[in-house]
């Protein structure tokens, strides 16, 4: 156990703990581990494919053709139509069928991707092979090679956060969409589909438009800078079609012809730059007890909220990501926020304090609508919220909305988590009902419930 945690543990123990609480805390301490980033698994060795045997055919196996990737626009093109169809279904007396698939492929820095796709399932009578999954014997497959009966030949971590349990995004390498545009569309879908209420405008909305000039646009024929890579690619295409590449093994560049159209340039272009209007703090409990579903639920809900705010604020949203165990840290990007492993103990107050400090130091209240969304499993070592509540009160003085989501563990009794208890007994929820919202759900809640949760946090 690290000494700092031990000190804190001793401190709260002095204040007095019930035996159950102590057991909880000790269990969390025993987990150990650190907050490193999870490995983002590509093709795992043990990947059990969804369709089993029938997953791949010759095109993928022999010709190494990747599965088709639809550009995002093709999916969205028909989206309005599809949603319209869905509304019509309801009128015709059939339940709605289209769901919003939120798929996150976090990348480092700005290369994170949120891909939003409408999904639907064709229901049929099918055998459920997964009914034994949770037990042993649910993963039987074939194998070959060395090994006695009973010998362990490999290990695979149990699903942590980040493998958000949804399939791949129908988009692999090369399909780079920015988080922004996709999240914007997700917001639009959420708004239209779930009829989320619009936020009241608070603060001062200043729609200043600045322009910056960038060399990001490509242009054939003329421009400021020659884009060598793109040009070479064009030259190759031209010569392949001219038949100047008889043998890929030995490329003879001396035979190449260069057409004037092959030259690709970067050209100076004017890009709009928005002033931000809203600042969202996403706060996530990444203590040891958050292992598994609770984390999955929290991050997926945060992605949705984030997208939805983007929509409301016409992309004028900035977001900050804060993770906490007994200490809080700000992380630079969604990727880290999303992929940090859980470990350590829990002290909510640390996170709230950090938010208050950031807001104070950077004087954000002047220019921003401030939203704070906190996701936790409801566990807090700070019994009774003695440290948290003052921080929370300070927060409510400037925030437009503070939304706390508690993803309860299924094993425990419901509505008895520490965070819920002290929030309710503090009376803050009643006093500041338009500023503070609490939503409690089981960690196994489905997408629909998560969206209901967003409604109650943002309405």
């Amino acid at each position, binding site marked *: 156990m690290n000494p700092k945690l031990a000190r804190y543990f001793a401190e709260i123990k002095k204040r007095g703990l019930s035996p159950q609480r102590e057991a909880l805390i000790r269990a969390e301490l025993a987990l150990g581990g650190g907050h490193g980033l999870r490995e983002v698994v590509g093709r795992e*060795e043990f990947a*059990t494919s969804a*369709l*089993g*045997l*029938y997953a*791949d055919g*010759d*095109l*993928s*196996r*022999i*010709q*190494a*053709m990747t*599965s*088709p*990737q639809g550009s995002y626009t093709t*999916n969205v093109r*028909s989206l309005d139509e*599809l949603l319209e169809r869905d509304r019509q279904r309801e009128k*015709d007396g*059939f*339940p709605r069928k289209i769901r919003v*698939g939120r798929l996150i492929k976090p990348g480092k820095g700005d290369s994170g991707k949120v891909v939003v*796709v*409408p*999904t*639907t*399932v*064709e*229901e*049929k*009578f*099918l*055998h*459920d092979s997964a009914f034994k999954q949770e037990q*042993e014997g649910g*993963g*039987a*497959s*074939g*194998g*070959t*090679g060395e*090994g006695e*009966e*009973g010998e*362990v*030949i*490999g*290990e*695979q*971590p*149990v699903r942590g956060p980040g493998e958000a349990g*949804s*399939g*791949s995004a*129908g988009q692999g390498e090369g399909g780079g969409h920015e988080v922004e545009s996709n999240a914007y569309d997700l917001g639009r879908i959420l708004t239209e589909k779930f009829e989320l209420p619009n936020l009241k405008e608070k603060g001062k909305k200043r729609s200043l438009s600045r322009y910056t000039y960038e060399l990001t646009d490509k242009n054939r024929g003329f421009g400021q800078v020659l884009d060598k890579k793109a040009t070479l690619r064009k030259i190759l295409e031209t010569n392949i079609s001219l038949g100047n590449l008889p043998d*890929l093994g030995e490329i003879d560049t001396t035979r190449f012809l260069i057409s004037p159209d092959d030259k690709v340039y970067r050209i100076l272009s004017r890009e709009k730059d928005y002033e931000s209007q809203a600042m969202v703090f996403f706060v996530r409990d990444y203590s040891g007890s958050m292992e598994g579903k609770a984390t999955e639920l929290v991050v997926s809900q945060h992605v949705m909220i984030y997208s939805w705010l983007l929509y409301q604020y016409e992309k004028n949203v900035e977001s900050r990501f804060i993770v906490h165990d007994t200490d809080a840290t700000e992380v630079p990007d969604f990727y880290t926020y999303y992929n940090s492993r859980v470990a350590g103990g829990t002290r909510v107050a640390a996170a709230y304090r950090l938010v208050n400090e950031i807001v104070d130091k950077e004087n954000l209240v002047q220019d921003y609508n401030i939203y704070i969304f906190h996701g936790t499993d409801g566990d807090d070592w700070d019994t009774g919220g003695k440290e948290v509540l003052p921080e929370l009160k300070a927060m409510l003085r400037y925030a437009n909305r503070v939304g706390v989501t508690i993803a309860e563990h299924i094993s425990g009794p419901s509505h008895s988590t520490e965070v819920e208890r002290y929030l309710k007994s503090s009376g803050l929820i009643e006093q500041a009902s338009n500023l503070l919202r609490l939503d409690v759900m089981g960690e196994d809640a489905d997408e629909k419930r998560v969206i209901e949760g967003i409604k109650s946090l943002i309405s």
Partner: protein
Amino acid sequence: MELIDQHTKNIMEGCKERARQAGLRFQDETLEYIVTNRDLLELSPKLMIPTLYDYWVHDVEVLKEKGRYELYPHNPYETVINTRPAISFYNDNNPDWLNVMIFYHVLAHIDFFQNNLYFRHTWDFDLTGQALSDKRLIAKLRSEKGRWVDYVIEFARAIDNLVDYHGELSAVHRPGVGVRSRRLDYYFDLFLQQVKKVKISEYVTEIERYNQCTREYREQAEQCFFAEVNARYPEFEAMFEKHRGGKPDGRKDLMQFLLEHSEFLNKDENKWMLSVIQVIRKTSLYFQPQIRTKFMNEGWASYWHEKLFLQDERIGGHEVDFARVHAGVTSLPRVGLNPYAIGMRLFQHLEEMADKGRLSNDYQRLLDADKRKTFDSKAMKGQQKIFEIRENLSDFTFINTYVDQDFVDRFRLFVVDRRLNEARMVWQYYVKSRKAGDYREMLLGSLYHPPVIRVDTGRTRDGTLCLVHRFEGKPLVREFIANTMMGIEFLWGGPVQLETSEVAGTATRPPSARERGEKEPEIAWRRVLYEMKDRKLTKLAIG
């Protein structure tokens, strides 16, 4: 989509000649298209059939919960489709030597499609043409009826995995002895056994008497035979009439049953729905054999592309490139199942066994391990044997018949399972068994197998349709039941019941139990009856 160029087509024709010499049989014409990512986007939801009908679900990328259901009875991306002429698809930058390998692979697939008897019902027409006319029909109906066409498609697709494929196939294979007499069937199958409950000796006597009549009277056999029956049982004719005009035939699959007996569908204003359902049913039947022969089909194709490629003199010098690609396709993974690898090795193994005469009683009865190792009768029946197998078996029979201990030992195969190590939060994969029986069970368990759900004509009355799921050790996916039944209710035009089995209760064990090495608790099953009425689902335990 564009066709491959003349140069490549020329290679293909060369491959055809060599494949024919090796014994493969297929139609002369084939079509080869280059596909791009964009084409695939359009083709893959349509099962690679370019002319399949349009349906909005195709527009929606289905990605969620892939692991929970099988989308279609086939593989998502296939190189070759079973049409006339067969159409195959190629990546546009394959080098020539790779194309040669793929062409052999494709030709073996075509040979399989056109000779394996499970495909018998697909031999007499070209699907692309058929699909095109269906597509036009559905488009025309859409322009008249609007969104209701899509509802009918959706509800029909919800039950298209319940088509009676084997029934359909047996109808094709039925020997042409003319129409069997229903009167005769009724007399022997029902009347004597269930109504009169006669002794076996008496039953055999009756059969003998009938055979006697056929020998003596040939054409008039039946008349003579029944003359006596009517004398003995005066009530027989009346009962037969009642039986014939009585209950609908419950042996038909659910789709057929709805087509024939749904009052809602047979109303004048709804007649158009029948043709939509027919289209869905036909399409589903067409793809059934493909998914039931995955191991064989891929194994067969891999077997031949290896064999023929190495004999092809045109691409000497590319053996190493070939080896690399071939290994990627047909290597046995440390953990996992590769139908290409298992199928190919099983064909090769069987060929050797047949060459040495080991598929015989003499060999099977040998217990002496040394003698088994050296047994060789020089029968050289290998080629003949694998061609027989290719003609007559499907995945189930192939695996069930031929995966034996010899095969499992030879390729060092085993069953893998995983257990949870709670202390470290990892799944541990371990070697569970090297017994052929267990390996076979595991393979068979991974094969496609739709549930058997039949109409219970006895309990279908007062406008309520009663379906019974024959329980085979797995429950149905619970969250799909409501919508599927809602669709059936719509097509039937009245309430629908479904009898099925569910897990009565899951006893979750504390982790400590596992550490103490206690056995998994037995799962308790119970029968339940779902009822869908006015789009509301209710559930009732019935024992």
